[in-house]
Structures are given as C-alpha cells and as structure tokens.
C-alpha cells in the first residue's frame, strides 16, 4: 500500500527550523507559546499565520519587532477566522489568475479560548461552515489571560478568575467548560483534534494531519498558563500531563466524523492530583472536587464510547 503521506508516519522527525523565535515576551514557563512554536514547526515554511488578539499577539509583536519568521497578520480579537477566510480566498483567486505562483500554502489561524469560544465563535463557525482550507488552532489557557485572568466559557468549573472570584456566594466559575471541539465537529469538517504540548509528538502528528486535509480543520490545544493557573513556572508540562492523565483533558481526534482516542491514560488518576496544586482551585471543598470527579468520569465514559474503547 502506498503511504498517503509520509508526513503522517514521520511524526518523530522534528524540523530544526524555528518560526517563533526567541525574544518574545511570554511569561516564564508559558505552554501557549510552546504549543504555537511546535505547531509552526509542523506546518513548516509555507504558512501564513492569522492571529487573534490575546497573549500570543501581545507577547510577540511590539512595533517594530516581531517574533514571527512566517508571514503573520493580526486584525482584531474576534475576527481571526474571518480574516483567514479572506486570506485563503485571495490566495486561491490570485493563483487561479496566475498572479502569484501556485503553491500549497497553509493558512493557520490562532486564537485564545476567549477569541475562539466566546467573542470569535460566530466568525469561526462561519469560516468552518464555508469550507475554507485552513487550520484553526485554539490555544486554550482557560481564561482571558491577556486582559488579566478573566473567565471565559472555556474556564473550568470551580476555577477562580478575576471575574469569577470565589466568595461567600460563589464557588468561582459556576458553569462547566464549553465543549469547543464538539462544536467545531458539529460543522462536519474533515478534521478535529485535541492536543497538548505536554505530548509533543501527538501534537505534531495532529498538526500534520490537519495540514493534509482538504477543507477546514480545528485543533484545540490545552495550553497551561502558570500565571493564570497560579502554579510555579517550571510546572507547565507537568500540569498538561496531569490534565490528560486524570481524564480532564482527553487527547482524541475526529476524522471525518470518526472519533479516536489518541492516548488512553487508564486507569485515570484522581482529579485531585490535578486540582490540588493549582492556586486557581485552592478554595475548592472536597464536595466540589467530588462533583468535578463525577463530571469528568461521565464525560470520559461518553468519550470512550464514541471512540469505541471498552
């Protein structure tokens, strides 16, 4: 059998070329910039980046400097997917008219969880539905970090943020995390995946798959933020792993509607292992923690069922 793409089977080769270079102003231990850096390596040189306002934009481009060795554009907070629609459409017609040379160019859109699951959801839904060939990466640090740790619809239940402070009448964030990958998948796009830079080869493999599909793809990347999660800056990789091992952030993909677990961490670790060390969950009572455990377990069972895992 011919290999459809050697890329997919060569996940273990990592380019030495850097497209996000040193000199940016991300906090120490930021997993979001790490995720972006890894993802760009997998996309390679023929890539145009479209970025939403957020941490990654602010840490990387104070005029006249830039962290990006790829063509990069930022327009606003909520419209990255729409801007990417314009870029992709323009490239297509300009190539058709032979105004620019024909070439496979990846259009990669990057937005935070706020820019994706809240204010940018409409633009994203529109772009996914229209079928543009682009990859949308949500770098999910579970709050609006750029404006100072406010809640988003992707903030997990019970978490403390500056707009969901725990208090006499509040446990912190009072709603469950919005399921963005399923929302993206509901658009019947060819490829959706979750990933985490704590599992770099898994992440690279998924990006390479996304790059190969014809049509839109969506990758939801859990991106630990030591600053907002109130953990030491050397713990980002560890907390990413704990999120996966506890079943809180499962690694899976949805290829043409087919679910597949890409890593099965069973037996799951106790959610407390993940929650306990983080300042944002410090106030949680044992009752809330067991509530979270039940929720996570139920979600995990549902996902296993979808993935056909016994």
């Amino acid at each position: 059998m011919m290999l459809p793409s050697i890329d997919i089977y060569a996940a273990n080769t990592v380019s030495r070329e850097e497209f996000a270079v040193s000199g940016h102003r991300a906090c120490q231990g930021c997993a979001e910039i790490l995720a972006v850096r890894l993802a760009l390596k997998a996309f390679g040189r023929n890539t145009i980046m479209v970025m939403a306002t957020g941490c990654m934009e602010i840490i990387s481009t104070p005029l006249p400097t830039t962290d990006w060795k790829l063509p990069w554009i930022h327009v606003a907070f909520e419209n990255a997917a729409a801007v990417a629609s314009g870029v992709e459409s323009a490239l297509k017609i300009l190539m058709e008219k032979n105004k620019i040379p024909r070439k496979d160019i990846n259009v990669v859109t990057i937005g935070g969880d706020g820019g994706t699951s809240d204010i940018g959801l409409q633009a994203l839904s529109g772009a996914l539905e229209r079928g543009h060939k682009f990859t949308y990466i949500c770098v999910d640090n579970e709050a609006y970090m750029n404006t100072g740790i406010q809640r988003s619809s992707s903030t997990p239940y019970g978490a403390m943020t500056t707009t969901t402070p725990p208090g006499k009448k509040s446990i912190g964030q009072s709603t469950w995390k919005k399921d963005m990958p399923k929302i993206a998948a509901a658009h019947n796009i060819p490829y959706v995946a979750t990933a985490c830079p704590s599992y770099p080869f898994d992440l690279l493999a998924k990006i390479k798959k996304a790059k190969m599909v014809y049509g839109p793809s969506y990758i939801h990347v859990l991106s630990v933020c030591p600053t907002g999660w109130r953990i030491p800056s050397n713990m980002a990789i560890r907390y990413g792993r704990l999120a996966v091992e506890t079943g809180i952030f499962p690694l899976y993909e949805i290829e043409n509607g087919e679910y597949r677990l890409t890593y099965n961490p069973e037996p799951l670790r106790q959610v407390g292992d993940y929650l306990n060390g983080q300042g944002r969950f410090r106030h949680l009572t044992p009752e809330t923690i067991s509530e979270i455990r039940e929720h996570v377990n139920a979600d995990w069972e549902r996902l296993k069922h979808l993935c056909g895992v016994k």
Partner: protein
Amino acid sequence: MNAKKGIEVSIAASIAAKLARVEVVAAYPITPQTHIVEHLSELVANGELDATYINVESEHSAMSACCGSSAAGARTFTSTSSQGLELMHEILFIASGMRFPIVMATVNRALSAPLSIWGDHSDVMAARDTGWIMLFCENGQEVVDSIIMAFKIAEDRRVLLPLMVNLDGFSLSHVIEPIEFPSQEEVDKFLPPYNPLYTLHPDKPVTMGAYAMPELYTEAKYAQEMAIVHSKEVIVKVMDEFGKQFGRYYKPVETYNTENTDVVFIALGAINENIETAIDRLKEEGKEAGLINLRLFRPFPTKELLFALKGKKRVAVIERVMPGGATNGPLFNEISSLVHSNRMNISIEDYIVGLGGRDVLPEDFRDIFDEIKATPGKRTKSKKDKNFSVIGVRG
C-alpha cells in the same frame, strides 16, 4: 462615446466593480444594498466576473475578510448599509490603520431605533472619522465613475487607504437611470492591476498588524493622517485623468449657480439634485441661490470649499442626520469650524432634513431660502432652544 443604458443604480454599481476587475468580494446583505451584492454574486456565478465571492456570516466578518484578502494582495470590494456599517465599525479603523485599499459602496440608510430601512446619512456620519476616504454621489453615473476611480485612488502608493463610495439608499440605489458604461478596455487602460506594496506570502514574510507602544503610536497615526490629507492631490489628479479619458470631469467640490448670489446651500449626496431643482424654480421667481455640492467629504476639501465660499454671506447647511446631542450636525460643525478659523464673515444655518427617508421637496428649500434671506443668523421659530432646525417635525 458609449451609449447610455437605463439601469438600476445598484446594478450599475456592481457592474462598475466588475469593470474594475475586483478579485475578492466579501459581503453580507442588508436593505437597500442587497441588489449590489446579489448582482455581484450573479456575475461571479455566471463566470462574467473572475473573482471569489465570500458569503460571510456578518458584516463584521465581511470587513475582516476584506482585510485578509487585501493583505494577501487581492483587489477587494464590499458593500453595506446602516446597521451593517455599524457592525463593521471596529474593523473600519483597522482597515485604514493597516492601509488596505479596500473599496466599499455604502448605501446610506437610517439607523435603528426606531428601525428604518430608508435613506439618510446616520450610518456614514457615525463612521466619518474612521480614516476612510469618503466620496458622495449625486446620481448613478457618479456612482459608476466613482467606483472605478476609487480603486485608482485607494491603491495609489501615496495613498493606500480604504475608500467609501456613498450613495443614498432607495432615492439613488433603487432608481433606474440612464448610465454610460465605459468599455472594459477603456477601464483597463485607466486602472492598472493592483500592485500591492507588501503582501502576506511565505516567500517574503512580513508581520502586519503589530501593536505599538506609546513611543510609536502617535507617529503611526500621524503618518496615516498625512496620507489621508495628502490623498486629496491624488484624488484631484485621478478625477482629472478620468475626465480626460472619459469626458466626465469631477471635482471634490462642485458648485451650481454660485456666481450670481451670496446665498448658498451646502449638502452631500443625491439631495443635491433636488436642491438644484429648487434653485431653478427660485430663479423663475427672480430669486438667486447657489449650491455647493461636497463630492469629497474625507479628506475634508478645505481649500476647495474656502474658494467656493469666497464672497458668500449666508449658508444653509443641509444635512441628513440628528446631531445626537452635539451643538449641531456634523456637516455644520465642519463648515463652521472652517469658516471661523479662517475669520470669514458668513452666517451659517443648520437644517436637518429627510431623516429615515422622509421626502424633501423643492418647496422645503424655497422655505429655507426665504428664512435665511429674511432672518440671517436669527433664531427661527423651529429652533427655539436648538442651534439647528429640523424640517417637517410634527406635533
């Protein structure tokens, strides 16, 4: 000379975009702009226009996609109206700040609430300081010619700014008028293909849309301001070139019957044709009034306007937007600041007319003329505690 053709002005606008060989259109329908985007999508669907039409999910995304497309180097067009323009508002500033030569046909319409689909200038006046070049059209021929000129102005390396061609909702957009279309060859001769300065491309990576620290923001904004101020020279030059090639000459400021009188109206858009009719009728009654038609509103044509106002004594500013708590309407404020900073002794009155599609008749202008002639600078009954008069308010 090409034959004139009776055609709806909206359809004519989309044909003009086609003649300009637009490459990407991203647009969202809203009355009374719909016919423009419908016809454009038809032209693309039939292969008559070799462009990509992006059916975006909102005007916010329309303008955002236009930014992306322009950044990637495609000649980009869109069209909107009213609430749609306001939904774009945030991105209008970014399009001009990032110096994207996008052209937009803005079909002027009132804003909610109350909801009104009919024409006035509330939409564009709320967007007047977004850094876009703004042209206003009096008739369908001007719409066609302005759209073709628009790309040449916007894409000029000395300009690189987005440009809005304003046309009045219904009273212009839905009217059938005799219009002369230049041939494709003629337009091609006039308007060269878009040759962008920078584009998003992996072969030559650039960063677009970075943020500025306080040490740089002012300079960036100043440079942008100088670009729009100096765009006027390019606008005049392009208008002249257009005239030489097509025989229809345009100027940023047009005058009608201003030589014989020291009383003038100043207005924007299609209402100027009504005022001209009113002026002709006044003439029959032995009264002389003139008209200053501002074709160009941004950059404000200071020099041309001062020239047109020379020797005038009384001015009636006709505008189609409520001041929203300001001392006067926006057009009045511009003109009065110009007149006063140049120490001209002219009395200016502000008249708000035709809101939300209300008819304005030549008689209304005759009444305005009689009023300013009789009581220059004096509070009229309709004004009482305001600095402006709203024509036709009942009860």
